[in-house]
């Protein structure tokens, strides 16, 4: 099954969206400030132009049937005051230019007597802001319409506009940066609880099924409730399974123990060779089923734990001495000597204690089982390269040509061991434990007996 692709991080989505909003707002600020400033600059220029044209209009007079105008100095000085502006004017009546530049264009819409008209034109290669104004002058009792046009270059306007544009840009960028920072802070704070919950869930080991107790934002409450419900159900299921296995084992093996005890008593009292043989067969069968039940449960446990491996620092040499203590009486019964090289140096590996212990016990158990009475099982624990190697050698009948690959198949046993009780699961268990810990397990035929070798990588604390 393919794992679902993780969707984009909440944090990134929030940040990107908030930054988008900030960018739009910054752009609005930039263009808004520019537009307002341009309007203000234009209005200022228009006011001055209007004032200048009005000043000229004040001086219009009729003399000897002619219109005369004495253009006052102030009319131009007020225009030239700012920057090095150039000024153009034209006074016209009845399509006849009285004075000024006669090619200075008239406005598209004729101004009325009351309101001046402002417009922008391109004149002799420069941009001009122009005002047109009309006045009535009475010439020989006849009213004559005079149009006064005053134009001014837009250098000052352009300078103001570019200054304002710079200012607007800085304002926009500043706003964007500030908004970005605030967004980041807000996002972090808003997502804090989510991260804490995720961390709390992530930190727990696979075996920790206790409910989540972290304070939870209201939006996440359904999630945590669902999670806690699920964990409670899982916990109950696991406990049920464990109890079931334990009780099953108890109910199967207790009657077996009874049968075996009774059979042993009967054997002690048996008179004939036939009944002795029958009773021995019964005891063997009981032994075999008891062992198989045990190995099956061990194997189920090994498989389960291998899949949910929760490694810890464990000491092979300590586990080996425990296993030796537990199995020495079994070896004693057969007069088998367990010869152990000194176990005084710890052999740390990273692994599951139960699994490794189970592997060691199975190795020892195999060796004791297959070595003949009155023989020696040699056990050594050493370091080879980056691995701790546990080697257990018996003096038994050997593998009779079978190889490990075949023998570690479940329920598969060697073809020369029919007379020895076994379940065919021991090697499978050891093999699985070795594999799940990144180690290896080998069986080697020696001139006398078999050497089983379990290698597990050394653990070096960081």
């Amino acid at each position, binding site marked *: 099954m393919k794992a679902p692709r993780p969707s984009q991080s909440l944090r990134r989505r929030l940040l990107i969206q908030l930054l988008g909003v900030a960018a739009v707002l910054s752009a609005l600020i930039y263009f808004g400030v520019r537009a307002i400033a341009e309007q203000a600059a234009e209005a200022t220029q228009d006011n001055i132009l209007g004032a200048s044209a009005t000043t000229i209009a004040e001086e219009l007079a009729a003399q000897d049937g002619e219109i005369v105008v004495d253009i006052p100095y102030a009319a131009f000085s007020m225009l030239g005051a700012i920057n090095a502006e150039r000024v153009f004017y034209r006074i016209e009546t009845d399509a006849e230019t009285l004075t000024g530049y006669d090619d200075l264009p008239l406005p598209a819409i004729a101004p009325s007597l009351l309101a001046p008209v402002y417009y922008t034109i391109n004149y002799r290669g420069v941009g001009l802001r122009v005002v047109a104004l009309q006045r009535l002058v009475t010439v020989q009792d006849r009213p004559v319409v005079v149009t006064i046009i005053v134009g001014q270059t837009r250098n000052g306007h352009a300078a103001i506009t570019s200054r304002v544009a710079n200012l607007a840009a800085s304002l926009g960028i500043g706003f964007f940066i500030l908004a970005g920072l605030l967004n980041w802070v807000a996002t972090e704070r808003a997502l804090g609880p989510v991260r804490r919950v995720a961390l709390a869930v992530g930190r727990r080991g696979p075996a920790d099924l206790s409910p989540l107790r972290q304070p939870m934002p209201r939006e996440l409450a359904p999630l945590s409730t669902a999670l806690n419900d699920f964990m409670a159900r899982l916990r109950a299921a696991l406990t049920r399974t464990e109890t079931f*296995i*334990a*009780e099953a*084992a*108890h*109910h*199967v*093996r*207790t*009657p*077996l*123990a*009874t*049968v*075996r*005890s*009774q059979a*042993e*008593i009967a*054997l*002690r009292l048996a008179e004939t*060779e036939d009944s*002795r043989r029958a009773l*021995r067969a019964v*005891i*063997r069968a*009981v*032994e075999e089923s*008891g062992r198989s*039940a*045990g*190995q099956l*449960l*061990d194997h189920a*446990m090994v498989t389960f734990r291998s899949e949910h491996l929760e490694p810890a620092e464990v000491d092979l040499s300590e586990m080996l001495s*425990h296993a030796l203590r*537990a199995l*020495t*009486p*079994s070896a*004693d*019964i*057969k*007069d088998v000597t367990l010869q152990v090289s000194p176990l005084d140096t710890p052999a740390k590996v990273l692994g599951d*204690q*139960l699994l490794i*212990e*189970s592997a060691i*016990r199975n190795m020892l158990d195999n060796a004791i089982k297959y070595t003949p*009475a*009155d023989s020696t099982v040699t056990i050594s624990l050493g370091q080879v390269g980056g691995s701790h190697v546990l080697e257990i050698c018996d003096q038994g009948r050997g593998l009779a040509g079978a190889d490990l690959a075949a023998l570690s198949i479940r329920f598969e046993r060697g073809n020369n061991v029919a*007379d*020895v*009780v076994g379940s065919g699961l021991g090697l499978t268990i050891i093999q699985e434990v070795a594999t799940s810990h990144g180690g290896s397990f080998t069986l080697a035929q020696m001139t006398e007996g078999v050497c089983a070798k379990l290698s597990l990588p050394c653990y070096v604390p960081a």
Partner: protein
Amino acid sequence: MRFLLVEDSKTLAQSVADRLAMDGHAIDLAASLAEAEDCLAVASYDLILLDIMLPDGDGRDFLTRQRAALRETPVIVMTARSAVSDRVHMLDNGADDYITKPFDFAELEARCRAVLRRRGGSATNIRTFADIEFDMLGATLTVNGQAQQLRNREFRLFEILIASPDRVFSKAHLADRLFSFTEDASDNAIEVYVGRLRKKLEGSRVIIETLRGVGYRLTAQ
């Protein structure tokens, strides 16, 4: 030796008791933790055999609770479980050893002896016959003041013979008690161990006699 057997299955308890009685041990039976506590209140035992799944609780909790009251009495837990976790847990709780059901009585005896040996033996375990001394706990045979260590099978064989001097035991009977039921040992394999014991008995008045076609017996000259 006196055993307390705490086991709720009546049939199993009875057969284990019968079997242990055959070897001359005295067994008290308790079917629950409550009964076990009653027994412990009035008698003292050499060893306690404890099942862990009992109707009124878990044997391991009992062990934790009773460790002080048990004083030095060794405890061997009988378990039907096989998970290693149980075993580790039991030893942590103060059990001396455990044995998995169904068990071999030879193994149970071996474990009992190992546990008692670890706890330190007592004088009552020494048996004298004619001019030899047999330490059942230390598994030593003293001939002419010379102590010799017996290996497990020699020890068990001698234990059977010395329990009833002058009684004749058949090879088949001895083989049943000496060899595990899971190994195919011929009755003649007994001869090897008889031979070894004879060698260790050299210089004493005690001999192992062969009665051709019948078996062996231990007797003093």
